[in-house]
């Protein structure tokens, strides 16, 4: 079955960032259809489509919208999570680079469905260029009457602001993002209350990922059935896969959910670089863990990686590692990232990530001890000291990556420790 790109159909078109080009190619045409429906009908439609969040957690988008309080008198906010900071993930950036108005169209219809009156786009601090592109698009859209009062004569008002982050991974966590949006330090909040009840500035807030919102106009156009016909039963729709690492053609590929990791590498990313063998692949952002070379037939849908010991699909930012990769160094790199990005609020994450980094550094320096691996597993295991013990999921991400790497490549870790001891003697 051939698959026509949906979200990336404007990629490669000349001046695709411009409003005129976007409109010419059918852009913003979901608006009249959306405004003809009641917000609740729109929410039901999205629910029926089975659209699951593209930000990493894979939670049903339509369901999330229903958590908002009914008949809320005050403002409801839409907070767009564009703090794409997960290592190996660059899909939202790609969408913004090539088709910023698609994001805005998604924001408008989704805000209408959730009765939001203000949309904040929280964009990662390091995305300087994208912030410019996005701001230009927002300005254009305002001028054309897609934002502001009485959008396209519908009677619906929506303001839109681009808010730039200051460069912290933790601000991709939805409540950390809301804190940062309010001008505070990006420390995740304790839940409950969840953002749908008390989000930005204490008001009910919908938080959605950029790619999730981009799917909504297409669902309005083509219907829920069309959307569910793409992908697998539980993971519907098209998905952007960002592939990087030791492959011949790294990049973003839009494919139906459920493509196997092997197909992604072999068929789309041009196979392994220099004809090397694949040693493993991180399915979607480093916090999800790693797929061993034996597990490459894993379908990259919301359930596949989870059935193979990973935390989940995550952002589908696949990092491929060839046979020459030192998995101890790779894990050290990942743990260093989490140690650096831990906000420092919760004890297990703050202390645990630093502890693990020091242990891995010691192993790499040739001073590993035999029980180091067991100690790390004790910290990271499902019943261990880190996962599920903190306010947000950052500790889980650290733990999952470490657990997966050590368990799936244990011989390599042990060899590193043993060779070191041999040298030391």
């Amino acid at each position, binding site marked *: 079955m051939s698959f026509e790109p949906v979200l990336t159909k404007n990629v490669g078109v000349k001046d695709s960032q411009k409003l005129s080009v976007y409109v010419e190619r059918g852009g913003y045409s979901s608006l009249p259809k959306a405004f003809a429906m009641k917000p609740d009908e729109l929410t039901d439609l999205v629910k029926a489509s089975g659209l699951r969040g593209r930000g990493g957690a894979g939670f049903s988008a339509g369901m999330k919208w229903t958590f908002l309080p009914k008949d809320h008198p005050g403002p409801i906010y839409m907070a767009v999570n564009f703090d794409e900071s997960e290592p190996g993930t660059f899909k939202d950036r790609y969408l913004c680079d090539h088709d910023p108005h698609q994001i805005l169209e998604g924001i408008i219809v989704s805000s209408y469905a959730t009765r939001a009156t203000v949309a904040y786009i929280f964009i990662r601090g390091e995305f300087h260029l994208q912030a410019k592109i996005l701001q230009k698009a927002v300005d254009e859209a305002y001028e054309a009457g897609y934002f502001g009062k009485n959008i396209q004569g519908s009677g619906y008002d929506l303001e839109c602001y681009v808010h730039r982050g200051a460069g912290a991974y933790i601000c991709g966590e939805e409540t950390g993002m809301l804190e940062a949006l309010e001008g505070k330090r990006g420390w995740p909040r304790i839940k409950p209350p969840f953002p749908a009840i008390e989000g930005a500035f204490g008001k009910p807030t919908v938080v959605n990922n950029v790619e999730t919102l981009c799917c909504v106009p297409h669902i309005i156009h083509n219907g829920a059935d069309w959307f569910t016909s793409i992908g697998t039963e539980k993971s519907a729709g098209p998905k952007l896969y960002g592939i990087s690492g030791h492959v011949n053609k790294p990049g973003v590929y839009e494919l139906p959910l459920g493509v196997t990791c092997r197909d992604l590498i072999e068929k789309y990313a041009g196979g392994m670089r220099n004809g090397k063998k694949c040693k493993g692949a991180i399915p979607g952002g480093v916090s999800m863990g790693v797929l061993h070379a034996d597990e490459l037939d894993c379908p990259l849908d919301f359930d596949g990686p989870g059935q193979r010991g990973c935390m989940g699909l995550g952002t589908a930012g696949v990092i491929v590692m060839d046979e020459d990769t030192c998995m101890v160094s790779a894990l050290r790199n990942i743990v260093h990232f989490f140690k650096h990005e831990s906000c*420092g609020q919760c*004890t*297990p*994450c*703050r*202390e645990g990530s630093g502890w693990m980094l*020091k242990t891995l550094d*010691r192993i790499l320096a040739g001073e590993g*001890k035999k029980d180091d691996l067991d100690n790390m597993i004790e910290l990271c295991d499902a019943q261990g*000291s880190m996962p599920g013990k903190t306010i947000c999921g950052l500790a889980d991400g650290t733990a999952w990556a470490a657990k997966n790497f050590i368990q799936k490549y244990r011989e390599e870790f042990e060899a590193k420790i043993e060779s070191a001891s041999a040298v030391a003697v």
Partner: protein
Amino acid sequence: MSKVTVTINGQDVEAEAGRQLIDVIKENVKEEVPHYCYHPGLSVAASCRLCAVEAGSKDADGNVKMFPKVMMSCQMKVTDNMVVNTHTDKSKQHRKEIMEFLLINHPLDCPVCDQAGECGLQDHSYNHGQSESRFREDKIKQPKKQVGEKVLLYGDRCIMCTRCVRFTREISGGGELYVHERGNGSEIDVFPGFGVNDKLAGNVVDLCPVGALLDNEFLFKQRVWELKSADSVCAGCSKGCNITVDYNKGVIYRLKPRHNPEVNDYWMCDEGRHGFKYVHADERIKRCQVRRDSAMYDSSIENAVDSAKEMFSEFTPETGRKLAVVISPMASLEEQWLAASWARELNEQAILVRGPVFNAENDETFKAGFTISKEKAPNRRGMELILETFGGDQMTFTDLVEAAGRNEIEGIFVQGGYPWQNWCPDEMVEKLRNAKVLIVSDILDSKLSQRADVVFASAVWAEKSGSFINDQNMCQPFEQGIETFEVGVNDLTVFWQLAGRVGPADLELVREELSEIKNQSCSKEQQADTVGA
């Protein structure tokens, strides 16, 4: 507030809906659920992750469903049919692991740490931790820095509970402290050019559960296990913050706030906290003194009382000589009562004088409502109550000075007790000295005491038991901590003996005599609870 029923460790407990679970547990479970970041006076951070319990709920059929993860009792509010188990294997194991985490970067410098002996890390490690750590790496070293004029930070020891940060943001309102850096590089710091210097600064030291924030004035002065504590009331202003006096061998080392939700909550100001230095000043009047010819001689209290009695014997109503007795707003209610009673027994026309009350320009109110009263006397309302009760001839202190200057008053008894030497300026002293008899009871040596005929060495608030009526009309009793220089001598003893009462001064008896007028005028008699939050 509606009540809910929570099952804690198998026992059904009633609690007000919406209260924090950790508080309800504290009140109902004997075994402790430890915590660091939680403080009942601050917002909930839920970041230390130590107060974990297993929690769930019971449905209508009595089926219990527990959450798979351990839950933080500080962030949960009690709801109906909540089921909580505080000391399960899972929650105990979790606490062990958290304690291990907290200690990996904490120096083991307890022998030189001021907090040792009252340290959350020591106590919780002993009760909830484990004896061995799996950690074999190097610890992180953090700098020491002065974050306020009197607040010192040992960054190494900090466990990032952020109580201090929340305090400056929520209670004092200055927001001087913040968390710098991220992850295990986090440290508490102040913004450049700012320090924790407002009058509530000292509270961050009390709040610190470990030895990270330290009071420069207490630093290396005492090991806390040597200290004894007395429940007292601060005499710095008319707010009447409930405090403990921590002392050893007759020396006060520090004052700390005691929880009283109606007065000072968990806090006190630094004026009070550091304002006790005069107690141990060289200028304290240590012995009673009696004038012989032109010189003053140290004397026993009995001798001084006898001299005073003899001098005042000429002031019976029949002689027509005028006697004035100054009632001090610094004295306890019991002392004021005895002073007034003695005066009127001696001479029912005795003039009762309203002792001067010194005021700052304004009350100082902080963000969360904590107010330092401008009235720098702990018991003005007590003084007024006594004057009102006794009625008769009365005047202000200024009027007394003027009247004495005009030679209209021949006998004066001044009850002082002010923590300043020059509370009665020299020119006033000269006017008062016009009186034939000038007797003074005071704590600090001054021109006034030097010019008196008899001086009684009075006691400061920490050296006696008594009561103050604060600015909310609450009568607050306080206990004696340290001894006076001359054991047992205070205004209560002085007036007891002057009145010719037998035996040692009996505070309880005086309180009984007082109870009727006190009940009528005090909004309530308040005894604070001592809470180690």
